[in-house]
């Protein structure tokens, strides 16, 4: 199958007064057409920076210092800002976390959808309005002919996120990057929005990169999963494998920290300690200080990425097997 996106050895560093922060430190992955990938991890893991790097929305003092982002056979890293403007919003669009701030508060919904269509399509004014209304209908906004004239503050959080999805799919992009699209929403609304995103993506055959801290969301939404920690990929595999037979201690830790309905344990398993300081990372494996399986080599030497079974990559000196607990 032909790949839509290949990311090779991506490194995005931030040069700050306090020192160098390696937010994304050698990330590799690829995405086929229509495939969905989940990037999970805790805050500071580099998930969002990975997403932003792909559409090159990295500002000073950040910089993509190394790597390739091959989208449809062309390397985006070498593209100029002008060329990127043609790709952003047309070929690759983005859904942001906070529906309160992603929309412009002083423009009506009509103007904001129209902007995307005007920039990236050749439709006339009347057609654009018609398309906009259709888009709003397709994301489940009741009475779109009237609602299209409203301003963001007149809509609820869930409705705003629907509008943002409508804008993201307006140009039928090949890839959608969604950065925590439902984190700011209530759980019943989250369920609605996730269902909508799934429907939209299947209907239009878009590829999706879903960035979230919630493994449960990922397990319902994506084909494969990449777990990140301190800028590095810890484990990568199809969703089934990650949920049921993960081999990295960090992934296992994340999974067991999730409170479950079915279990009756009074106590939750936890990952001891906290995420290390990005200015002062451990010498060996970044996860070693919190890892309950660590041995002396973990503290001195960084592991290398290895493929334990086909398509299952683990960044660990001693990957766990199904029996380990």
């Amino acid at each position, binding site marked *: 199958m032909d790949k839509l996106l290949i990311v090779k050895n991506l490194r995005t560093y931030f040069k700050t007064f306090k020192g160098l922060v390696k937010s994304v430190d050698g990330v590799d992955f690829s995405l086929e057409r229509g495939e969905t990938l989940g990037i999970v991890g*805790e*805050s500071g893991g580099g998930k969002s920076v990975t997403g932003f790097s792909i559409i090159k929305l990295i500002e000073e003092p950040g910089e993509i210092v190394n790597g390739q982002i091959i989208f449809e056979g062309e390397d985006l890293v070498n593209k100029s800002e002008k060329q990127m403007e043609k790709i952003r919003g047309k070929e690759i669009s983005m859904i942001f976390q906070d529906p309160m701030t992603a929309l412009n508060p002083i423009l009506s919904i009509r103007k904001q959808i129209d902007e995307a269509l005007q920039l990236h399509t050749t439709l006339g004014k009347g057609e654009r309005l018609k398309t906009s209304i259709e888009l709003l209908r397709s994301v489940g906004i009741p009475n779109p002919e009237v609602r299209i004239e409203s301003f963001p503050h007149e809509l*609820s959080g*869930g*409705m705003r996120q629907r509008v943002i999805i409508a804008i993201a799919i307006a140009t039928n992009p090949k890839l959608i990057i969604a950065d925590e699209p439902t984190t700011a929403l*209530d*759980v*019943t*609304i*989250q*369920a*609605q929005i*996730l269902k909508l995103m799934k429907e939209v993506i299947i209907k239009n055959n878009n590829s999706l990169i879903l960035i979230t*801290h*919630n*493994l*449960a*969301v990922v*397990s*319902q939404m994506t084909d494969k999963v990449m777990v990140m920690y301190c800028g590095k990929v810890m484990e990568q595999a199809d969703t089934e494998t990650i*949920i049921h037979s993960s081999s990295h201690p960090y992934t296992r*830790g*994340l*999974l067991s*920290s*999730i*409170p*479950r*309905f*079915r279990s009756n344990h*009074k*106590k*939750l*398993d*936890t*990952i*001891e300690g*906290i*995420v290390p300081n990005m200015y002062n990372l451990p010498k060996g494996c970044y996860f070693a200080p919190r890892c309950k399986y660590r041995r002396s080599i973990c503290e001195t030497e960084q592991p290398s990425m290895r493929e334990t079974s086909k398509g299952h990559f683990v960044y660990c000196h001693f990957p766990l097997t199904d029996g380990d607990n």
Partner: protein
Amino acid sequence: MSKLLEVTNLFQRFDLTKGFFDKYKFKSWKIVREEKIVHAVNGVSFDINQGDVYGLVGESGSGKSTTARTIIRLLEPYSGRIMFDGKDITHLDENAMRPIRRNMQMIFQDPYASLNPRYKAIEIVMEPLLFHNRNLTTPEAEMQALELLERVGIRPEQKDRYPHQFSGGQRQRIGIARALAVKPKLIIADEPVSALDVSIQAQILNLLMDLKDEFKLSFLLIAHDLSVVKHISDKIGVMYLGKIVEKASKNDLFSNPLHPYTKLLLSSVPTIDEDPLVEPLEIKGEIPSPINLPKGCYFHERCPFARDICELDTPGEREIEPKHYVSCHIYQ
């Protein structure tokens, strides 16, 4: 078992049209009287036994935080009765409330906003000690504060740091130490873990449970995340638009959810469990505005099982099985 907290038929409303010119508007050559009242809490009753954890769940806007703030009397109740430790505290004034608050402390949602940025960690914990106990000397208070900080997992050498030098989880630990300082009987925890990463959430929840046994605490736990509540509560109340629509022991609620809204909530939570607790339900609409409360059952507009009566009549609370109360016409 004795009841530590008893809340009966609590109401809370906020008048958005306080000023004269908010209330009287000039519209099409007439002076019109307009009233906008947010009905935040509409008749909430529940009780907490000594040593229990009571979980209050619901979406944003369901009135769970307002209920908590009214109980600790940060807000004046509109009507209803709050009994704490055998004493009616509904209408106590500020001075009379002060000794009560010694036994009732709060942990807030946002560990970034609830600590004074100009106080060191140790000072944050010392403040309630010195405030509630005039006989305590500063060195004594410092000793106690240090012990508390250590108990919640802040190392002694970190005591002179300011809040911005701590991570979110650590700040929440300081907030917990502050609440514990005066040895309260009841802790009201308003979304204590929702701002934290999942691995840190588990740490904080475990800490709260350890402290509960150690300090003989009772909890009123407010959360929107059912799985969090499920983990540490003994009893649960599900709130919707200012009403508790279902209350039961944790096991009853999760093994036999009755109210359609509870089922809806349970089916909405993304999970990695294989078989879902309840069949997925078609979800429609959003929580209505508490300014214009719907007629009849507040939930009928979103309810997949709504009948004619639901639009007309407010359902009363019924005990379906022992200690399992539901307000829904289906079960009347």
